[in-house]
């Protein structure tokens, strides 16, 4: 199966605001790729350009040897010729068509005989637990069912490439967990390339085989989820992935903490513009050691499995994440131990420095 290649892709809106900034990357075949980033970072635009719903201002998009778009040769392949499936955030189910009509629409456009359409619908209905719902209208279905209809409609035409635009954001929390598992299973059975757009780092971490973190129209870092988490290549990535987010400090704000962190990392203190520590790398001890780091507990948020503990240290708010109950009550002073593998340093431009890379 072919890779998707983007080559110097530029997209602006109205000739001014830059949506995608000279993007060159390859999405390897068979992967489940998440485009992750805040709103306005260009992730949806990238997806829509791959789908053919938007055109780049310049650059080239290829799917293996097939050219989807090229400003050099003047090639533009229309969306329906790209053999891809697209699922929208709103699902875009047509409210005036029944579930079955929605699902077989793509087949009807290919002029597949009616009996074959019906047969294919039965197959898909079984796969997506839609048996008996064929004659219903979308508004008569629950959110989860609508989502499965949208999936079935997308897969009915057996696309080579699946594009998903924040498909889980309209679901409630419990359904979301279920659908994450279902999408992951689907990817494993079909084996085709999936590109998934989301602003939810948890979704990206849990589902992707590869995450591309986007910021201001560029990909900041593309790697496996755990590599992104353990070795963020920039301040932006470190801050965006992880919940609660990484505690970030400048050496000027909290000199004691910051110098301790650069010492552990072994980074020259003058190179570090910012240092950060993951909440789970902040360990609390009952009594502050003599001359060691200390903090005051000011909030405790139990989540059931873990505790999120708010701390005040050198006038800064920090969050620690622990699977152990906090060693003392609110208002008490505790000692701090820092775990080396959760500490990161970034230079003035936000690039990671030190042994973390």
């Amino acid at each position, binding site marked *: 199966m072919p890779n998707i290649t983007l080559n*110097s892709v530029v997209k602006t*809106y*109205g000739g001014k605001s830059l949506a995608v900034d*000279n993007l060159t990357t390859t999405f390897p075949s068979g992967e489940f790729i998440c485009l992750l980033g805040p709103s306005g970072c260009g992730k949806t635009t990238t997806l829509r350009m791959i*789908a*053919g*719903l938007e*055109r780049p201002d*310049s650059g080239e998009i290829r799917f293996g040897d097939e050219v989807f778009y*090229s*400003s*050099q*040769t*003047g*090639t*533009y392949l*229309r*969306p*329906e010729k790209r053999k*891809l*499936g*697209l699922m*929208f955030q*709103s699902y*875009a189910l*047509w*409210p*005036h068509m029944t579930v079955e009509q929605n699902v077989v*629409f*793509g087949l009807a*456009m*290919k002029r597949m005989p009616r009996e074959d359409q019906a047969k294919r619908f039965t197959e898909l209905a079984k796969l997506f637990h839609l048996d008996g719902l064929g004659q219903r209208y979308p508004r008569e279905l629950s959110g989860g069912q609508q989502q499965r209809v949208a999936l079935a*409609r997308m897969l009915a*035409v057996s696309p080579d490439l699946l594009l998903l635009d924040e498909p889980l954001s309209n679901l409630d929390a419990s359904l979301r967990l279920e659908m994450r598992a279902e999408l992951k299973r689907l990817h494993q059975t079909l084996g085709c390339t999936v590109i998934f757009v989301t602003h939810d780092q948890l979704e990206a971490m849990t589902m992707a085989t590869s995450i591309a973190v986007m910021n201001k129209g560029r990909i900041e870092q593309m790697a496996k989820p755990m590599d992104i988490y353990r070795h963020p290549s920039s301040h932006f990535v470190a801050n965006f992935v992880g919940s609660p987010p990484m505690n970030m400090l400048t050496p000027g704000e909290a000199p004691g903490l910051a110098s301790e962190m650069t010492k552990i990392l072994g980074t020259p203190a003058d190179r570090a513009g910012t240092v950060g520590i993951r909440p789970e790398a902040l360990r609390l001890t009952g009594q502050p050691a003599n001359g060691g780091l200390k903090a005051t507990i000011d909030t405790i948020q139990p989540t059931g499995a873990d505790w999120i503990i708010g701390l005040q240290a050198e006038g800064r708010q920090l969050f620690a994440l622990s699977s152990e109950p906090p060693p003392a009550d609110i208002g008490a002073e505790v000692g701090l131990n820092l775990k080396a593998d959760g500490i990161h340093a970034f230079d003035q431009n936000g690039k990671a420095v030190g042994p973390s890379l």
Partner: protein
Amino acid sequence: MTTTDRTTRPPLQARLRLLLSQLVSEPSYVIGAVLALALAYLVLAPMAAVLGSAVQMTRMDAVRAGASPGDLTFSYFQRVFTSPVAQDIFWTPLGNTMTVALFATALAVLFGLVLAMLVTSTNIWGRSILGFLLIIPYMLPSQALATAWITVFKNRRTGGSPGMLEALGLTPPDWLAYGPLPIVICLALSYFPFAFLLFSNALNKIDTQLEEAAVTLGARPHIVWRRILLPLLIPTTMSVLLLTVARTLGTFATPYVLGTPVGYTLLSTSLYSSLRSGAPGVAAVLAIVLGLFGVAMLLLDIWMVRNWQRFITVGGKGGKREPARLTLLARFPASAVAWGVFLIAAFGPLLVMFLSTIMREPGVFALSNFSLGYWTGGDGRPGVFNSPEILLSLYNSLSIAGSAAVICGVLGLAVGYAVVRLPGSWLSGFLRQVSFLPYLMPGMAFAAAFLTLFAVPRGPVPALYGSITLLILVMVVTYLPYASRSGISAMMQVGREPEEAGMVLGAGFFARITRILGPLQKTALVTAIILPFISGMKELSLVVMLVTPGTELLTTQSLRFLDYGHTQLANATILIIGVVVMLLVLLMQKVTKSSLAGGLGG
């Protein structure tokens, strides 16, 4: 970046190929371009023509002044603003217009607000049916109230059949029969439903939690109104004020019927008589003045919307407001006020008009005096049902307003489609703005513009004066702002995703329109057709200068009848319009399965 751009700039051939593929795969560019051209011609050209004829000599004046036609002249401006006749042509009508607009608007907004408060927030008797009944004046043509007024108060100053009071032996004084007082009353009564609709919608949209928050903090109901609800209505009040003023500025029928007999002229009637007396240059200057008023109103509206934005509350869950339980002592007068307005503004006039058509002699309530003669004919004259004028004008009204409505509805959705499909492009911005421009121009001014442009052949376009095409065109352009606005919002609501989902699955443009967008926009299309249809049936000021004996509409025909003193036939004609409009409203409610209040906002 710019340097890499220059080195990788694709060859011309590649760019042309891309452009071509874009035009083929995205017909909205073509649709948008065609619409833009058509609109530029139909909207911008008439405006330019008016400006032109205000500063160019007409043939007649040129001969008189010894110049050649088309020469640049400012004599029309001088005539309107500074000449000895300027007082009669412009300054007095300007003052009268201001007076009438001020009082009529104040009354209409007051009625609208009070009634909206009563109907949405108290338990007056029959509040749900009043919500509908109070909008009836809105469905009648603008001259209905004036005609009804004449039917009752007409005195011996004008000829034809006498008014009801006169027939009873009471001669109403001139100040009661004609002039500013009746004009203000009639305008206020015909424009308050608009204020009522907007205020009711606004009140229903205010999140009840805002009031509940005040109540939990100890505010009594009157404090809640004074401190919370009324301030929240300020933006609505502002736009209602502006829109009502704009309407009264352009109004023609009421001042024509009630002002002309005593020489009380407004700008609109002055414009009309300038045009009728063969002074198109003067008329053009007056049209420009009216147009400038329109621009001023629009700019004010935009400015206010921007300034009062902080009043737009973050949408909450809301919920229906629990109507306040009035004590019996308060409930009775409150109900009486609401029903009283209905009786005076809708039921009374309709009854008076109807009675006049079934009584041989006005004011004689003997059984023998009642007859269907005016309807069926007899005594050697035709009745309504077989009067060639009425039948012809009914046919004209239905076919002209109908065709204009269909064209308008389709155009509106097409504009919406192009605007939504081409976001951010200059074409989309141009369409949005130009289709909204006619909104600035009072109908009278726009009609003058069309008359100037199409009275003579221009290029490939033949002279259209006296043709049905001209009437259809002018209606289409005038109602386009509403149609395109609702078209844009209908398309926005559906969004691009349903269509794009079809695109990815292989549906071409035609399949997308017939199988996805068409069915989705069915209701919007019907509404987009019925609303201009209703406006077209009621239209007078726009068409009164453009109709000719063969192309009379019901509205203009009723005015002719009044001119000749046939009050009964005029009333019958207006009743016919009322019935047709009522049927259209019912049809729309059936199609959209909604109540009127949402739809008639334009």
